[in-house]
């Protein structure tokens, strides 16, 4: 009878979060003095569908809270209330609050209600305080708000407050068309909405239920007598809005307390006495009456009756199913929305692949050497198809970076207000696509960089005017593709990095010595060191000195880099470079003995054959390569990875100079093989993390090759050195 709604919860949450995002976006666009009605409509629609969904799925707290938000929006939309800046703030905060509520519900936690109740109070104050001109509509507001308060309290069916205020009730007779269930209008849902209006009682009229063998499972044979002690006529009408044309409906107002007579229970029905005793206990009672009336119809009719007559039971059910759903939602993985064009191109590609396959199959069935050319052509086509297919599949994981960018307008708006700065945010290249996993991980570092630009970069308006700049500062977020990488820039036109302060701080912290001569770039680099902050005042926003090093580390974990360029007085530019995807890596295959390893191409600077004259021994053991004006320590890969190499002499092998964590190292290998893109496979999935190895891949011959984690290898090399050094070498 009832569909298990919990299976749709995940979709509801995803859609609601999207709705909240669009509400937020709309609100940020709103200018109280001059706004577009369409924007208000968008916000209103988003709020409305969240409310509707929450109601359907039994998330009453969300539905109730959204209702007040919607009420305010509706008044603004209808023009009966002027939009003020305070409203926008209030609405933005309500978006945050809703997001938290739903996050809690999604995780299966009990949502923290105090901020929601707080905000709700403020909404009510706004709605009640400056009453709009029409007195009638203000009454509507007041009463609806009372109901709202009522339903958020623990027991929504507790009617003490409502009946005190309105001594009377709505007597409703509702006889839907037998098609009502098929059209998707679930009476239970309507009853739940009615329930929110005030004390709710209902009695199903079952006399139309046919013989068992004539029952249609999808048809509704029931009608209901309902009393609702509370709500306005408009609210009651709204509940039935969708079914009014397809049902027999009478609604009338009766003064006084609801009596059982209004439920239309006739005395000659055997179970009526029981039903009267406690309205809440009706399911069994009615079922019993069912049994006595018509034994044969019992199995089919029972669920329908029990489901529709007593919403309380449903509510309890949905609570338990909500718990179950939240558990399952923790197990379900997140989903992504993929554009239909990408799916279409994928299907086309698979179609071509199938054609190529059948062509090759035919060729193979009766092959002779005359057909060699056609075979080669076929294989070339197969390669082409495969590559295109791979690219299309990869594209599925790609999302436009606007998903990450979209959180910044809000952040900049709030922070600039907090700091009394005037800041414009410019977003460029929002449609640049990158891998979903990369996107998820780049969000936090970017937030950090933007906050830094806001706090340290952009000056206060008076300073800016004094410096001859426009009063309003600009922060630009720019994203674009550059040769297999995605580049994200965070550009501000603030005061730039103060090189002297950075340098003096670095000397104070002992990061550099006073005698060091550093280039501008090297000085700028210093801000990425751990524990480095030049903020004069530690604020909420930044300046605690944890940050830039974390930013760099996070980005390096994604195989990316971050750089800063800065001109004092003109501004700074942070440039993040990231690989387009984490699933594929450009690799250089190297051979050590019989094993093949893969070095990430991004970290390779150069490869060279060395001559003994280029090698110096520092402290006896540590070989160092003189590379132009630099000295690069040499690490023998076979020693670290315990492989039997072909050569032990440096002259006979090759050195691959790699860079990681800002230091260069020459890796000694036997031979360089091909350069190719490799698909990264996890070692941890079935085994465990291996030091110095970031993953594995499968080569063309089906063999497994390990991918070297450059910074991990360097760490091992340093540890080994530390182990061998103490004692003899240090003394020497």
């Amino acid at each position, binding site marked *: 009878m009832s569909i298990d709604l919990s299976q749709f919860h995940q979709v509801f949450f995803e859609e609601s979060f999207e709705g909240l995002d669009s509400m937020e976006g709309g609100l940020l666009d709103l200018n109280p003095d001059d706004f577009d009605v369409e924007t208000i409509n968008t916000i209103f629609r988003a709020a409305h569908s969240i409310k509707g969904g929450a109601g359907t799925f039994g998330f009453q707290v969300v539905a109730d809270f959204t209702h007040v938000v919607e009420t305010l929006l509706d008044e603004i939309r209808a023009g009966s209330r002027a939009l003020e800046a305070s409203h926008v703030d209030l609405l933005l905060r309500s978006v945050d609050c809703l997001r938290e509520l739903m996050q809690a519900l999604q995780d299966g936690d009990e949502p923290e209600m105090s901020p929601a109740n707080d905000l709700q109070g403020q909404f009510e104050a706004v709605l009640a305080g400056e009453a709009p001109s029409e007195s009638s509509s203000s009454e509507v507001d007041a009463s609806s708000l009372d109901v709202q308060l009522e339903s958020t309290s623990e027991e929504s069916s507790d009617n003490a407050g409502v009946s005190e205020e309105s001594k009377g009730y709505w007597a409703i007779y509702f006889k839907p068309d037998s098609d009502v269930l098929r059209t998707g209008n679930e009476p239970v849902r309507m009853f739940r909405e009615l329930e929110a209006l005030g004390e709710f009682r209902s009695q199903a009229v079952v006399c139309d239920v046919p013989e068992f063998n004539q029952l249609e499972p999808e048809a509704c044979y029931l009608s209901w007598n309902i009393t609702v002690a509370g709500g306005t006529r408009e609210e009651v009408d709204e509940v039935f809005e969708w079914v009014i044309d397809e049902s027999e409906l009478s609604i009338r107002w009766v003064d006084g307390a609801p009596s059982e007579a209004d439920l239309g229970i006739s005395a000659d029905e055997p179970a009526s006495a029981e039903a009267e005793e406690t309205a809440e206990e009706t399911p069994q009672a009615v079922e019993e009456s069912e049994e006595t009336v018509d034994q044969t119809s019992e199995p089919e009719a029972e669920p329908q009756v029990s489901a529709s007559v007593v919403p309380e039971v449903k509510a309890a059910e949905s609570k338990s199913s909500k718990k179950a759903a939240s558990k399952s939602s923790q197990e379900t993985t997140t989903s992504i929305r993929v554009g239909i064009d990408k799916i279409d191109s994928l299907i086309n590609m698979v179609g071509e692949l199938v054609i190529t396959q059948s062509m090759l199959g035919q060729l193979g069935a009766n092959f002779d050497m005359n057909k060699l050319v056609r075979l080669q052509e076929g294989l070339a086509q197969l390669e082409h198809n495969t590559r295109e297919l791979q690219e299309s599949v990869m594209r599925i994981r790609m999302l436009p970076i606007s998903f990450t960018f979209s959180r910044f307008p809000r952040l900049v708006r709030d922070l600039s207000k907090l700091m009394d700065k005037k800041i414009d945010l410019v977003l460029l290249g929002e449609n640049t696509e990158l891998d979903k996993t990369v996107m998820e991980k780049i969000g936090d570092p970017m937030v950090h960089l933007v906050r830094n630009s806001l706090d340290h970069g952009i000056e206060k308006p008076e300073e800016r005017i004094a410096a001859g700049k426009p009063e309003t500062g600009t922060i630009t977020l720019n994203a674009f593709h550059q040769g297999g990488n995605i580049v994200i820039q965070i550009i501000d036109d603030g005061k730039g990095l103060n090189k002297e302060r950075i340098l003096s701080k670095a000397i104070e912290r002992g990061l550099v010595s006073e005698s060091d001569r550093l280039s501008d770039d090297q000085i700028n680099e210093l801000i990425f060191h751990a524990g480095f902050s030049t903020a004069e005042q530690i604020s909420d926003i930044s300046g605690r000195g944890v940050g830039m090093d974390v930013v760099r580390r996070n980005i390096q974990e994604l195989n990316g880099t971050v750089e800063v360029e800065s001109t004092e007085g003109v501004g700074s530019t942070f440039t993040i470079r990231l690989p387009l995807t984490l699933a594929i890596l450009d690799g250089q295959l190297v051979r050590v003995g019989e094993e093949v390893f893969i070095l990430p191409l991004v970290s390779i600077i150069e490869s060279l054959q060395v001559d003994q004259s280029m090698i110096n021994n520092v402290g006896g053991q540590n070989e160092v390569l003189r590379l132009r004006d630099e000295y690069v320590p040499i690490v023998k890969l076979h020693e*670290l990875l315990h492989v039997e190499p072909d050569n032990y002499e440096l002259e006979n092998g090759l050195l691959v100079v790699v860079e990681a964590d800002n230091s260069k190292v020459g890796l000694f290998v036997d031979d360089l093989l091909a350069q190719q893109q490799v698909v990264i496979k996890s070692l941890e999935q079935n085994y465990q993390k*291996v030091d110095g190895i970031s993953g594995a891949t499968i080569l063309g011959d089906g063999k*497994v090759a390990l991918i070297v984690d450059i910074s991990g290898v360097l760490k091992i090399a340093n540890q080994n050195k530390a182990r061998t050094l103490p004692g003899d070498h240090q003394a020497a």
Partner: protein
Amino acid sequence: MSEQALSNTGNAASAEDMENSLGSHDAATDQFLTFIMANEEYGVDILSVQEIRGWEAATPIPNSPDFVKGVINLRGTIVPIIDLRLRFGLEQVEYSPVTVVIVLKVTTDKGNKVIGIVVDAVSDVYSLTADDMRHPPEMGDQVNTTFIKGLADVQGKMVILLNIDELLNLKEMPDVDAIKNMIHD
């Protein structure tokens, strides 16, 4: 000769036992795949066996214990291969054409893993009930027996039923000689 006779009667008895147990409580029967290693027969729950394949060269993993032979490509998944002989501290033998890899699904605290174990040869599949299994005897603190699910007597032969989840999770090596002594005592 007398030994032969003994084992024969044992055989008959256990076969009868098995039939009885099969007939009486069908649902409680578990099937075990057994394999041979150093003349001992070991059994694993057949439901944890994903497939059995011949030995093929694996890519060694640097800085890993010597019982980890490396990783292989199992239709696109990277699967580590563990030599159970080395894992048990037994003498290593040359891999031969009958050397097989049993690919197992293992439940660990970090989720399900697929791991291959190298054994000398695959033996048989037995249906055993809970009644057929004996608890491993207490062996004192110095021997870790958590990886033994139980001992079973099948046609007069002792089969050591392994708790594969524990075995491949275990950090320290079980002392096989001690277990052997215990089994034969």
